[in-house]
Structure formats: C-alpha cells, structure tokens
C-alpha cells in the first residue's frame, strides 16, 4: 500500500508554521545502557506522556562518537522522526552531522553539553540546533573547586587529590583545567595526585588505593563523578580513613551521592538534573516541531529544586530531594 500513501505524505508534510499531528522524537543517548541517560529518557517520556501525542524512541550511542554521528544521519535520512534530543558523546564531531538534520527540517535539542567547537558556549553554535539544555561545565567545576578553597583556608599544606574521569575526554580536560585554575592560585593548596577514575567504581578504588599509598595524609578528594567517589570511598575506608574527616566531593547528584552528602560523609556534590533535563529538552523540541517559541538556552542549573552545589546544610533545607538518577 505504498502508492496510496503518497498523497497523504505530501499533505501532511511539515507546514511552514509547525506540524500539528503526533510528534515522534528520537532520543540519541550517549549510551542507552547508562543510568544518567536512562534518567534523561525517563524525563522525556514522562513529559511526552503529558502531551499525549508525543512518542520518544531511544538510540544507543555506545559511548562512541562515530555511532552517534551515523545515528543523526540515519534519523535525518529516514524521515521517521520529527525531532531529535541529543546527549552528545563529543561536542565537535557530532556538529558535522547536524546540518543533515537541519536540511531534513528536523530540529535538534542538545542536553548535558553544547554542540559545536566551544564547550563553554551554550548558545546554539550550529545551524539546526535550536536549543541547548545544559549547564556551564567550566563554571560549575570552578564552583566545586571553590568549596575546596574554602575548606583549605588556614590549612597549610592542604593536600588535594583529584580524581578525574579520563583526561583524554575534552570535557574532563576542561574540568581539570577549571579545578586547577581555582586551586593553583592558593599557595597552601597542594594538588598531590591526579588519578583517572574512568567513571568506574573499581578503577577509582584502585587508583585511590595507589594514591593513598604515596599520600597517606589527604585533606581533600576532588572528584568529578559520583561513581568515582563511591569507589574511592571504599579505598579510603579500608585504609582506615574516615571520609567525614576529609573534604570529599562528587559530581552528578545521583541518589547514592545525595545520601552520602546528607550523611555527612561527603562534603559537597555538584548536582545534575537529568530527569528535568529530559523533560525540558522534550518541551523545547516539541515546541520547535510545532512551530512554537523555543528557548535557545535552558540553564540546567535552574531546573532542579536545589542549587548546583549541594552540601549537608543545603540538603537539610530540601528534605525531599533524593537525586534524579541512579547508577
């Protein structure tokens, strides 16, 4: 029955001022098998349900930029989808695929990171990206590091171990540089070790054990990811170090992290709101498809009920906040 549909396809092809029928959205996850992405997806699906006539499909990016590049191309080529929500694996390469989507009149909303050459520029940099739902990674990282500076005041030396995902990743490199730009200005703060945790508990545990070996006395563990801090905590505890006596951070705001901060074991956590981000991104993409007003930059920091850096005190004021994702 292909032929009979042709006229329909033509008649329902996107009108100038937005589509009216049901909307199908492709959610290109950086990896579908990952809690953070799952939360983005859940958020998007929840919002879609509220709409009633919006449908979300998740694609597995396998943490591979080529795969994601291909997926953008495929979605643009097939005409099955009206819009794309993207959790990019890399910000620059994927930009090259977006024009294909633009040509197919498929709006793209990116989450977590901007798309384009500038990791720090949230305004859409590439034609086809209609909105960025993200936070300023550099600024957030600096805020996290400033907490360390506060803690270290009056301590000399104040020994800091940094646990970063993988320095090979541009965003981790950016985070590390942001941390250092804050910490290196203080003579009393000594970054004694920089380990790579690879967002993995076991790797982080090993790295932390080894770091402790060379630096038995640590004052601060500055980690950019909750999974890493959890792994490092195992190493600290089995080395007889009481985490609550140190200044420990995580990043991501997952449920475990919020628990630890509430319990006073971790001093601070930089919180992400993937579920809210998913919701917001879906809203924007649906708006774009329907020809409604689109917000070019949605500051992810403002999406949640809590500020981006949480401490025990702050969480005390938000007894209901449990974290938006689990991993």
């Amino acid at each position, binding site marked *: 029955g*292909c032929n009979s549909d042709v006229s329909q396809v033509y008649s329902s092809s996107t009108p100038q001022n937005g589509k009216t029928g049901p909307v199908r959205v492709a959610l290109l996850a950086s990896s*579908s*098998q990952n809690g953070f992405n799952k939360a983005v997806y859940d958020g998007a699906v929840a919002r879609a349900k509220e709409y009633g006539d919006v449908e979300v*499909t*998740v*694609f*597995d990016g396998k943490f*591979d*930029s*080529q*795969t994601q*590049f*291909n*997926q953008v*191309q*495929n*979605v643009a*080529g*097939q*005409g*099955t989808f009206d819009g794309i929500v993207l959790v990019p694996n*890399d910000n*620059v*390469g*994927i*930009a*090259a695929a977006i024009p294909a989507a633009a040509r197919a009149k498929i709006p793209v909303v990116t989450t977590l990171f901007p798309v384009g*050459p500038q990791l720090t520029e949230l305004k859409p940099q590439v034609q086809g990206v209609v909105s960025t739902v993200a936070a300023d990674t550099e600024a957030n990282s600096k805020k996290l590091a400033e907490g360390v500076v506060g803690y270290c005041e009056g301590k000399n030396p104040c020994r800091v171990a940094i646990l970063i995902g993988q*320095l*090979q*990743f*541009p965003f981790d*490199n950016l985070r590390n540089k942001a941390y250092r730009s804050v910490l290196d200005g203080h003579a009393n703060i000594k970054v004694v070790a920089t380990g790579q945790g690879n967002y993995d508990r076991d790797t982080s545990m090993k790295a932390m054990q080894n770091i402790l070996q060379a630096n038995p006395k640590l004052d601060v563990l500055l980690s950019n990811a909750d999974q890493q801090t959890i792994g490092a905590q195992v190493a600290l505890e089995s080395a007889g170090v009481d985490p609550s006596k140190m200044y420990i951070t995580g990043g991501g705001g997952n449920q475990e992290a919020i628990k630890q901060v509430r319990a006073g074991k971790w001093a601070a956590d930089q919180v992400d709101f993937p579920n809210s981000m998913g919701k917001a991104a879906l809203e924007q993409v649906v708006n774009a498809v329907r020809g409604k007003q689109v917000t070019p930059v949605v500051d992810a920091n403002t999406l949640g009920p809590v500020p981006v850096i949480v401490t025990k005190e702050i969480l005390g004021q938000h007894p209901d906040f449990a974290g938006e994702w689990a991993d």
Partner: protein
Amino acid sequence: MTATASARAASGVNVPALIRHYAVLIMLVALFAVLSVSTSSFLTLTNLLNILNQNAPLAIIAVAGTLVVICGGFDLSTGAIFSVANVVAAWVALHFNSPLLGLLAAPLAGAALGLVNGAAITRLRIHSFLATLASSLVYGGLAVLITGGFLISVPAGGFTALGRGGIGPVYYAIVILAIFALLSGFLLNRTTFGRYVLSVGGNAEAAELSGIRVNRIKLYTFLYSGLAAGIAAAIGVSRIGTGQPQAGDGMQLLAIAAVILGGTSIYGGVGAIWRSVCGVYLLALIDNGFDILNANPFFKDLTTGVVILAAVALSVASKRR
C-alpha cells in the same frame, strides 16, 4: 576416478561448499530481505547509501585485514592507527592550513605505523597478536599526546569535502571502498604478491623453502593494513571535521570479527576479500535495523552475537561430512 568424485564433478554444484563460501552472503541477503519487508524506511536509496557510507572506513580496514589474517597474522592496532592518523590529519590540516595536505598525511601516517608493526613483528619475531596489542597501546598513547587530550577542530571547509561529498548521490567513501576492495582482490588473486601471501599464511616454511621472503611479505601485509587504517581515518576525520584521539577505539575488533565472519581462517592460508566486506555490512545491517525498527537497543548486542554465531554455524555445518 571414483564414482562419487565423478558424480560431483559432473553435476558441477557442490552445495555444502557453496553454503560454506556464501554463508555470510546468505545471512546478509536474508537480513536485507527481512528489513525490506518489515519497514518501508529501510529500502530507500538514502538509507542504503548511508549504510554503505557510514561503514566504508571499517570495511576498508577489514579488506586489508583480510590480507593480514590470510598471511597468518592479526592486526589489533588498526583502531589505534586510525586514531593517530585522524589526529595527524587534523593537526597537519590546521597547522599548514592545508586540508589536502592533512588528508594526505593520514594514509602516510597509517602506512608508517603499519611499517613499524611489520618491522617489530619480523625483526623481533614477536607474534603479531601480542605485538599489535602492545603497539596499539603505544599508538593510542601517541594519539593522545598529539592532541594533548583535546580535539583538533579543522574549520577549513575543504577538509570535509572527502568525507561528506560524493559523485552524484554516491559518497566518495563508497567509491574509495569499492576501488580499494577491487584492488585488494586483484592483489590477492592475480599477483605474485597475493600468491605469496596465501603461501606464507598456508605454510611459512614451505614458502621459505620456495625462496619467498617470508618476513618481507608479512611486513608488507602490516604496512598495507596500516595504510588502509590511514585511508579510513582520512575519510573519518574529514566526515567529522575534527581529530579525536579516541576515534578508532574498538574498530580493530570489529574489523577482525568481520574478516572471520567472512570465513577467512584465523590460521591463515585461505580467505576472500569480498566476504569480509559482506561481514562488515552484515554487522552494519543489524545496527541499522535496530535503529530503523525502533527496537530496544538492550537487545542489539545480544542479536549481533546470535547473528554471528548463526552465520558461522551455517558455514561450519556445511563442512561436516
């Protein structure tokens, strides 16, 4: 001449042998058919060209990898070579402000690294499995060092012509793959070099006794494989417009999987180029199918594994007497 032998020769068709040789093609056609009837968005020119185009770099690596495997080797460093070559291309294009120079640098860098592999394997007499595992670590480190852990974006417009442009609707990548595969097939079947590759892989001692410079042949196959990874990298980096130190991660295993899926023996001595290309596209169709059919990606790896097993079991079952 025995009765069965003559019967077989007379009928001219050897079904088990056919299945064995064409197992991967049969699976490919079957999957193609299934996808064609299950969704209308599969069998479109754009989609097919996209599939061909997207996987051309991997297929190029698998084509050269076939020669390596036939020659009795293993190249586990193609992914890392891809990474190095793609950052080298971006770096050169950026620093000399010449997209062309950059894109030419990739195959050169690839060939150079392949040469290093070959030299290490033949001089140090290390088995290629381990040698290329080690060199892939070294090359991977190199790629990171070149970029300092960042991406290298090439703003110059010409840089992306190779990866995104084409002849009419046919991307350059597809054209390059076609030429490279045909050339490699010719090399394997119609030249002394190919004959020597087959003989070195089949029985290195016999080849040596026949006056063939076994080490040199081996070295050439690794050089060729590096060159292919470099060409693939040129296409890849030009498509994305950015040099990334992780760009090639995991490609080597996919390429080898495709080669073996194509029925090339991991013991060397036998194999065919076109079947490796089929292997690549069999894997590609599974990926594409999942995306198109909107299937739960949780099942993708599982399905891929099952399809590989089915293809190989099909080819092996026909081998039994």
